[in-house]
């Protein structure tokens, strides 16, 4: 790894500033589908930014635009201060890892990784050193002479990564690169990727539909919906303060309780549930009383108590009955029937924690700051 630093392979500390700016990109196709509706995004240098969204939301189209495989109808793409909206892909200096890796089947691992260097007319001796270095980074020195089809899926993934970073591009794009790997492997590749990103100070735009992966990897997550970015921020910020029901539902697990807004003001909200019970929470957006709203409660924020020993509070206490018990290993999930609405509560298993069985009467409690009130879309 030190060798890498000597040859200028690794970055010289965290860069500052903005690497990539997408400004109001639009794209529609002749058949009438609209892929992007004014999508804007700013990617800071040296960070991983994930585009997270359901399939068809426009995240892959966005990636294609950045790489140059598709052109926006309007809007601009700026990479390191240079407008590249009309630059052909081979002049953009962007590395990309494809979903299916897109390794050249007729070339050895070495030749695959050397390809971008050869296209840049680098000296033969340099190529040899730099390729070996890149293969060392992904721990694949031993397989340089093999063909891609002679490698496992995980190894192919690493070759694709080595090939995308070997020429030290300004930006690395990854299109669901771990989709084809099994769960165990995916976890270790994610850690490895994070380590490499820090070590080489890479700027990465990462496309995924896997919210756990996005939260694990990203410095920032941009939630894409209908060809627009609906919210962008650090994973924790997005999780704790989603701005819409869509974002809340897409990132992490959520319970929603429908009701009517009884009182609102100064970020506080009181909601009347259909059965007349009232809940206190934070309002996510300014709303007027009488409006239909949804209350978001994350499963781990719900406390489960034995019915006879209710906590001494009157606020946000909901009585119900355990309907299902799902054992998750370190935690247990209770699905609680509240005589109509159902809530899922996740409780971490500690020695002191009470456990419940199906049919047990229980009382749920949640702090008002953990109830986020949204206007129902």
């Amino acid at each position, binding site marked *: 790894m030190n060798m890498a630093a000597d040859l200028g392979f690794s970055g010289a500390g965290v860069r500052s500033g903005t690497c990539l700016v997408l400004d109001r990109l639009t794209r529609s196709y002749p058949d009438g589908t609209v892929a992007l509706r004014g999508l804007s995004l700013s990617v800071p240098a040296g960070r991983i930014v994930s585009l997270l969204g359901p399939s068809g939301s426009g995240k892959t189209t966005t990636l294609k635009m950045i*790489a*140059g*495989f598709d052109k926006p109808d309007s809007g601009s793409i700026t990479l390191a201060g240079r407008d590249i909206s009309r630059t*052909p*892909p*081979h002049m*953009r*200096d*962007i*590395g*990309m890892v*494809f979903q*299916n890796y*897109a390794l*050249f*089947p*007729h070339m050895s691992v070495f030749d695959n990784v050397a*390809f*971008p260097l050869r*296209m*840049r007319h680098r000296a033969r001796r340099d190529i040899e050193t730099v390729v070996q270095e890149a293969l060392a980074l992904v721990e694949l020195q031993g397989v340089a002479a093999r063909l891609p089809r002679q490698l496992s899926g995980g190894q192919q993934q690493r070759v694709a990564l080595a*090939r*995308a970073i070997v*020429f030290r591009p300004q930006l690395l794009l990854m299109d669901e690169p771990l989709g084809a790997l099994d769960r165990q492997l995916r976890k270790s590749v994610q850690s490895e990727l994070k380590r490499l990103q820090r070590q080489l100070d890479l700027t990465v735009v990462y496309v995924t539909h896997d919210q756990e992966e996005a939260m694990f990897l990203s410095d920032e997550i941009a939630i894409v919906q209908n060809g627009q970015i609906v919210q962008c921020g650090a994973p924790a910020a997005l999780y704790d303060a989603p701005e819409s029901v869509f974002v809340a539902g897409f990132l992490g697990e959520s319970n929603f309780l429908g009701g009517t807004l009884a009182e609102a003001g100064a970020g506080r909200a009181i909601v009347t549930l259909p059965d007349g019970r009232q809940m206190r929470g934070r309002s996510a957006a300014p709303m007027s009383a009488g409006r239909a709203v949804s209350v978001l409660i994350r499963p781990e924020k719900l406390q489960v108590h034995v019915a006879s020993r209710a906590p001494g509070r009157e606020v946000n206490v909901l009585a119900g009955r355990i309907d299902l018990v799902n054992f998750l290993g370190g935690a247990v999930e209770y699905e609680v029937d509240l005589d109509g609405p159902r809530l899922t509560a996740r409780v971490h298993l500690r020695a002191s924690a009470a456990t419940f069985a199906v049919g047990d009467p229980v009382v749920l409690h949640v702090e008002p700051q953990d109830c986020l009130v949204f206007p129902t879309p």
Partner: protein
Amino acid sequence: MMDVALAGGTAQPVPSQRLFSGAGLLALPLIVLLAVVYVCPVGVMLADSFTDPQPGLQQYQRMIEHPVYLQVLARTFRLAVVVTAATAICGFPVAYYCTIARPAVARIALGLLFVPFWASTVVRTYALMVILGRTGILNGALLWAGLISRPTQFLFHTATVQLAMVQILLPFFVLPVYAGLRTIDLSLLSAAEGLGAPPWQVFRRIYLPLSLPGLFTGALIVFVFCFGFFITPTLLGGRRDVTIAMVIMAQFEGQLDWGFGAALSTVLLACTLVAVLMMLRVAKQDSNR
């Protein structure tokens, strides 16, 4: 019928799965037929070349003593190489176009390619004579346009033979190449482009190497056809366009010298085999690289 259903369906083919036990036996009639009408005659031909009219190598000796036969063989070889190369150059873009065109357009293009098959090679060759002859359509058009003052003879040139053969053999080339090109993962081209390859390099380093197996199959078919081509050179060619197949024909039909005809046929067969083996070898080396 069954093949069509299997090819068109979405069922996953399982290698070990069989239609029913003993399905392989259905291939038996064709194997028997091939043995009777192909293997036997070739055996007889080989035997004849060494025994007719008396045992010995005198037929082969005669071939070497008269350089004209080897010249004809070399000329046939050259014709096959030129026609194969020309077919490849004309056919490759067509096959490529069919892979990138919309499916409906590709179907029409491939269909048009096969329209000439509705007529036999003889008919198509005569049709070319009608077009290219001294009183043919082409001369008529050129005279009418005032580009020439008197009819030109387009027939009986080597180039005419080559043109006709390319036209006749093109579908045999395009189909296997098209099938091969369709298997190329187009994301590889994007990948290469993104890694810094300009379009020409994408073609040279990615697309062309990956299309070689299909190209070789197509070229092999065309080359082998060329080597034994008879009708078109006979009808359209001049005296210098005599192919080995025409000489062989003359031995059997005209001279009634079956021994010498058999010897020439044996040499033709051997040359074809050598050429095929060489091409296969190159193709294999290339796919291993």
